[in-house]
């Protein structure tokens, strides 16, 4: 994407014809990306709470207050009394600075970011099975697939450029199988739509694996040479019952069989999945179930195939890669690994904490318990995006001091004691890592408004104020320090990234990067098949809460909408919050299209408007989560996946009532 400027104004967005992924195309969010940059509501000065009001102050005052708060919290409760949330929208350089800041300046591993609520289960699951938690193929690789299996991903809306590529594969003759409880646009194009019940992913995947092994459709040679633990997987599926799978998943047995046959017997079959798989109490095991499916069929490590989690934010892959996570340094080097920790200690000249820190939701709970006293949140809006909103707001209120760095005064920033204005993507240099592991440059086109600064510069200044400079003077210098410590990125330089970027791993300066992972062997040597068993959603419908609520995203909006909702054309497209409901359920509840309704769960209630549609099945209602006027996170469940600490955002039990 190209940004045209007119003086100090963003004047226009232009598509990038030669880009290997977008090829001259943009989605509607791309076309409207410039409009938030000079929104009159941009934060241009630091703000300091004085009583009930947030009042403008100087950087000097803001840093003074922030340093004092961090010192006080540490003096009171030790280094782990503070926590840092980094941002998947910020650059790799910002995230590397954040993880260094947490570990060296604050001396804590309490650092996390929003991957916790999107693909933490992918990182945890694929790390266990393959040794690397990222898309194993490339986006362009979809052009070479003969079968595309899309599981819990609404790609035409959430990843339109990828969705367009999948539809183009379908037009070319590739078979398209869509697994989704909702009849998405992609599902209407599919050769086969498996409309499974919410939270029935494991029984469906297991049934497919069972059928594949039963019919001998597995890739025996691949299994023998490249995978381990087949016997255990076979044993776990011994005596599996297709009729039971049909009853449990709601998918006709014949469709399960057809999908298993098409996927297994096509050599170039790509498995693409999204948050429909991960945002469950069994998110990591869901990922492992899909990994088993891809492994028994030999679909990883070759062109036109792979297992491909689609990351949602511009740099959520990069934020993970940079180690903005409580358990790893950059490049997934564990904080508990003595060799890795020693390397970082040596490079940074300081001892580092050796036990994994708190995740986002654990920080919120610790805040509520009083053990976490001060939080620094960079460019995230957990009040809108995290589950069980009332718990989040209470936790933030329990902090001694909340520091928020953002472009706008978000719902989270409004609750802060200190607010720091940050530069947007157009106002700084750096790199983003896309979902296909492609590291790409962004270049500063505009001055930040007013006193706003890049995240990394704010962190460096704050570090100096705390007497522990990180020594950062430019984005490029941070990148160079990062590559020296991160084998996945070791061969990258700004010069090499200049044109099309590079896909990691890129281990030295002659390495052209890696389009397809695990070609010869897996990152962990042999891939691990791990039996997983059905785990139903933490909360099932009952008499009091008879419907299931799921969440999804709209084509026109991004995250909490703090950027996209400032674009007038995007804001015009949708009413502020909607509840999709099947006509039969609408009739039962006396609800017409466009009615005001209240959605209640055990955790809270939210008012919104009905949209009667057969896109959702009976018994399921669905809400997009972009709208602060009607946030589904007032009712969603914060039950956690024990392996990744991912909350179950995709399913909870609700009751519905028409407002009179």
């Amino acid at each position, binding site marked *: 994407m190209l940004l045209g400027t007119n003086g100090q104004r963003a004047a226009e967005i232009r598509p990038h014809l030669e880009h290997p992924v977008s090829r001259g195309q943009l989605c509607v969010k791309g076309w409207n990306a410039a*409009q938030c940059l000079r929104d*009159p509501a941009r934060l241009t000065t630091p703000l300091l709470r004085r009583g009930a009001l947030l009042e403008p102050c100087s950087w000097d005052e803001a840093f003074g207050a922030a340093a004092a708060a961090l010192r006080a919290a540490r003096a009171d409760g030790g280094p782990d009394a503070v926590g840092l949330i980094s941002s998947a929208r910020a650059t790799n350089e910002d995230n590397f600075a954040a993880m260094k800041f947490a570990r060296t300046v604050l001396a804590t591993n309490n650092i996390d970011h929003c991957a916790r609520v999107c693909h933490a289960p992918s990182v945890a699951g694929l790390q266990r099975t393959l040794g690397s938690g990222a898309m194993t193929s490339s986006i362009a690789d979809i052009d070479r697939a003969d079968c595309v299996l899309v599981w819990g991903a609404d790609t035409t809306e959430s990843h339109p450029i990828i969705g367009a590529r999948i539809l183009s594969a379908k037009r070319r003759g590739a078979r398209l199988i869509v697994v989704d409880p909702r009849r998405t646009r992609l599902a209407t194009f599919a050769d086969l739509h498996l409309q499974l019940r919410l939270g029935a992913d494991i029984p469906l995947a297991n049934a497919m694996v069972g059928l594949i092994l039963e019919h001998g459709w597995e890739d025996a040679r691949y299994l023998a040479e490249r995978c381990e633990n087949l016997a255990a997987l076979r044993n776990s599926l011994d005596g599996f019952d297709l009729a039971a799978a049909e009853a449990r998943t709601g998918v006709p047995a014949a469709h399960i069989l057809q999908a298993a046959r098409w996927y297994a017997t096509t050599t170039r079959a790509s498995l693409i999945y999204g948050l429909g798989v991960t945002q469950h109490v069994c998110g990591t095991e869901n990922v492992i179930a899909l990994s088993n499916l891809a492994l028994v069929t030999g679909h990883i490590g070759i062109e036109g195939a792979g297992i491909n989690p689609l990351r949602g934010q511009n740099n959520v892959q990069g934020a993970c890669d940079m180690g903005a996570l409580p358990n790893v340094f950059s490049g997934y080097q564990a904080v508990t690994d003595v060799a890795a920790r020693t390397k970082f200690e040596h490079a940074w000249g300081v001892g580092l904490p050796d036990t994994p820190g708190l995740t986002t939701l654990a920080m919120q709970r610790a805040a509520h318990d009083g053990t976490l006293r001060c939080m620094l949140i960079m460019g995230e809006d957990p009040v809108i995006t995290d589950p069980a909103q009332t718990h989040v707001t209470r936790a933030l209120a329990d902090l001694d001091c909340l520091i928020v760095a953002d472009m706008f005064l978000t719902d989270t920033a409004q609750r802060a004691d200190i607010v720091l204005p940050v530069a947007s993507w157009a106002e700084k240099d750096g790199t983003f890592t896309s979902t296909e592991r492609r590291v790409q440059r962004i270049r500063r086109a505009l001055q930040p408004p007013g006193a706003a600064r890049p995240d990394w510069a704010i962190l460096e200044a704050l570090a100096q104020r705390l007497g522990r400079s990180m020594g950062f003077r430019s984005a490029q210098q941070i990148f160079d320090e990062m590559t020296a410590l991160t084998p996945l990125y070791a061969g990258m330089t700004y010069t090499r990234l200049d044109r099309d970027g590079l896909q990691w791993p890129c281990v030295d300066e002659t390495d052209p990067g890696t389009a397809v992972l695990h070609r010869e062997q897996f990152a962990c040597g042999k891939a691990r098949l791990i039996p997983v068993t059905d785990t139903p959603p933490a909360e099932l419908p009952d008499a009091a809460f008879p419907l299931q609520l799921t969440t999804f995203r709209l084509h026109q909006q991004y995250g909490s909408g703090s950027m996209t909702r400032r674009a007038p*054309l995007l804001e015009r497209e949708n009413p502020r919050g909607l509840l999709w409901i099947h006509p039969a359920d609408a009739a039962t509840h006396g609800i017409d299209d466009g009615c005001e309704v209240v959605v209640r769960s055990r955790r809270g209630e939210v008012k919104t408007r009905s949209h009667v549609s057969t896109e959702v099945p009976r018994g399921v209602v669905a809400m997009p989560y972009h709208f602060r006027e009607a946030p589904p996170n007032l009712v969603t469940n914060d039950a956690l996946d024990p392996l990744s600490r991912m909350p179950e955002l995709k399913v909870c039990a609700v009751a519905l009532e028409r407002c009179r």
Partner: protein
Amino acid sequence: MTQTSVLEARARIDALRAAIARRYRLFEVRRHTAGADWQRIDDVSEPFDWDAPLPLSGAKRFFFPQRDALVRWEGGRVEETLPAPPPFALFGLRSCDLEAIGYQDQFFATDPYYVRRRERALLVGVNCTRACAGGFCREVDAGPFARQGFDLNLTSLPDGRVVVEIGTRLGHAVCADADLTVTELDAATRAGFDQARADAIASFPARPFVRRAIARINAADTGINGVDWTAFGPSCFACSGCSNVCPTCSCFTVVDEARDNAGERVRYWDSCLLEGFQREASGYHPAPRPADRVRRFWYHKFSDDFTAELGRVGCVGCGRCDTACLGAIGAERVLGALGAQG
């Protein structure tokens, strides 16, 4: 043919560019790592790129930018922000874009923001002597050789000479500045020119479906409704790419961007493929399904209901929408489907 001048060599074109650059800010299409784009040329000693591809972003943004401030206010003071750009020259416009500018000139004839920019512009065309990848200008009477709408128009002949057609007094003036002699074409040059045009036309693959499809859209008995548009609906992502890259699309929306007592009234490019474009305040929508909006878009491009007013169909065959469309329903694909149907 209008008045002409003949340059003995391509190299002489630099004298013309230098003369233009003395009076105008010079813009040319340059290839770079992100494709090809209009760029300000400060140094005319860089050679002109005769083979530069058609840029994905057309010339309309020079006259009708994506974001255009209309009025500014602060306290009680209100001022109209009429643009006053220094004179500028677009050197190297292809015939499709010249046709599109002519089309928009009519649409925006009384729009001061457009007109103030447009009247400061010098348009220099360069005829396409061979087909581009996705263009079908010849099927919609928009090229590959320009007929009108230019101040100057250049044709590079195979023998290395360049024919310069002079369309206006402005064009004449810069030719005079560059000491170009105005002559009638001699018979041999004329024949060379006609042959170049014939060769250019012949280099385009024939797309008879285009005229068939346009005829269907304008069938006397059924008009636009004679086509089944439902199949196109699900393919539309409502990305707005088609209308944004379309050189004849002119719809905009007006919003106020204000804080406290100061602000700007701004217009942005809009798109009829967006659901909110036609939705009325009551919630009623005259084009409620995506297929209805797709139909409406192509109706406005190809129906005779509009050619009477604007002199030509609203599509100049540049092929940009086929590149930008996420759902593969750009002009060539849609016309292909329509021209094959029925």
